């Protein structure tokens, strides 16, 4: 009797969890299908070649043009800038927390860095408008600081917690025997870190960077507020740019349903999806390689 009741419970819960699991996959599939569906609708009206090679994004002009290039370049520029700042800072912080910091400092630093992820992106965007932007303007003698560099600095701050946490886990997971062997042949702490520990943790660190990139590409509010949203083709870090995410955010609210412009926004959303997917897949791949490497 007791056994039968238990078996029934098991069956019910199995079904329940199966449903929730399937539901999540169905949501993902649904979103993906919607993106593809609307993107196809767009490509019926505008040729993919014009879309990919066009250097102007101007859907509301008298001669509507749907070139994604300036948007992709903007997103890439801001993301690369963010990574140039966040990678050295992130790996440095991770190495310090893992190898140099004492136990008490470590117990404080790690949660503190993770807290950074809890700051809402609007707050960071606001910081960009009132602090970082004017700061950049004053330092470089520009009339204003609403440019790609401003966005890059802010995105670096936002990507840091991801990078630091995962990179620290990776460095921490390098077996102690590696370090001991290194010390044993006479290497000092710095040499051990640079030549033994970090190379051994490399797949994990690359995974951390890729996940940080994924975070930076998809961020909307901060870049919308801080980069000036200029639709001209981006010229460099000291010029205003308009990223893919900002373009979707600006234009989605007013676009009439089922028009070419509407479908175009889904097409650029699909491109954004592919970019973040690539970054996240690369991250996952390296995380797995890193796990296998240490399991062996």
């Amino acid at each position, binding site marked *: 009797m007791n056994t039968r009741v238990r078996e029934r419970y098991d069956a019910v819960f199995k079904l329940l969890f199966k449903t929730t699991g399937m539901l999540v996959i169905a949501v993902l599939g649904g979103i993906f299908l919607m993106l593809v569906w609307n993107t196809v609708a767009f490509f019926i009206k505008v040729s993919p070649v014009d879309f990919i090679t066009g250097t102007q994004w101007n859907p509301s002009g008298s001669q509507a043009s749907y070139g994604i290039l300036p948007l992709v370049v903007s997103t890439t520029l801001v993301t690369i800038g963010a990574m140039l700042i966040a990678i050295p800072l992130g790996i440095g912080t991770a190495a310090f927390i893992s190898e140099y910091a004492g136990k008490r400092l470590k117990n404080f630093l790690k949660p503190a860095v993770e807290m950074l992820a809890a700051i809402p992106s609007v707050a960071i965007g606001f910081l960009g408008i009132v602090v970082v932007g004017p700061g950049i303007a004053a330092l470089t003698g520009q*009339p204003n600081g609403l440019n790609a560099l401003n966005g890059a600095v802010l995105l670096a701050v936002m990507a840091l917690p991801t990078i630091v946490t995962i990179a620290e886990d990776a460095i921490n997971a390098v077996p102690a025997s590696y370090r001991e062997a290194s010390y044993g042949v006479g290497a000092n702490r710095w040499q051990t870190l640079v030549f033994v520990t970090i190379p051994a943790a490399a797949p994990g660190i690359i995974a951390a960077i890729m996940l940080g990139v994924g975070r930076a590409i998809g961020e909307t509010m901060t870049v919308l507020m801080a980069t000036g949203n200029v639709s001209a083709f981006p010229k460099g870090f000291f010029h*205003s740019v308009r990223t893919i995410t900002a373009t979707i955010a600006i234009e989605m609210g007013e676009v009439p349903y089922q028009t070419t412009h509407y479908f175009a926004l889904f097409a650029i959303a699909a491109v954004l999806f592919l970019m973040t997917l690539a970054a996240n897949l690369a991250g996952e791949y390296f995380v797995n390689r890193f796990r296998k490497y240490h399991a062996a």
Partner: protein
Amino acid sequence: MKKICVFFLIVLISCNDRQTIIKIKGSDTEVNLAVNLAEQFHGIKPEYTISVSGGGSGMGIASILKKQADIANSSRPLTEEEKLLFKKMGIELKIFVFAEDATAIIVHENFPVDTIDVPALSKVMSGEYKSWLPVTGKDLPITIYGRQSNSGTHSFIKKKLGIAFSREAKEMNGNAQIMESIKQDESGIGYIGAGYISSETKGVKILRIAERPGTAAVSPLDKSSIKAQRYFFQRPLYQFIPLSSWQKVQTFLQFEKSDEGKAIIQKEGYYIL
């Protein structure tokens, strides 16, 4: 949510079972005014609950199409495309003009001149002039702080000047952000709703506009000129109401037209013709 949008909900005070809920969406220019009107109105008639949110004129009109609002505030008339969409959806619209708005052209307080004529302004806004040299005699690059394309003010200035905005124009999130940026940027020029400025506004200069070089320049703060329709950038503020909500919002519209409503509208920096 699409953008920073003001969202005010006037909470019902009594548990009156005859509560009427009116949803107002649309123009960021009008959102402060609409919130004030709604608050006062709720004070007089507590059985009405009014929620007001911004997002841009286009957003408000789209909300009516999606049947998510009773009133769409708009600082521009309907476009042909929108008229067609309403016809297709079978929604009949009532149009109500409740105030007159003026858009101010603002620059940094150290800007060397006080007046600009419309042809020169067109050249500045369209990007034909890259430097302030022809206007002020100072060789400083021009930085344009504009609104995003979902803003009614954006399309108003564009249409009124008959230009396409420079592709170098920055697209800011709202009037307040434009104001903050201009305060910090000596090379900047921007446009904001007159409701956001007064003669006490610090840090920016409000340019007087001359229709042609040599004609008298008019300031948007000059009430009598606005009444005489002499300021170049003035326009009516619309409220679009679907016929299905027309009965429900009558009392509110009457309040807007009452002396009390008019006083609020004027206090907010708008005009009544």
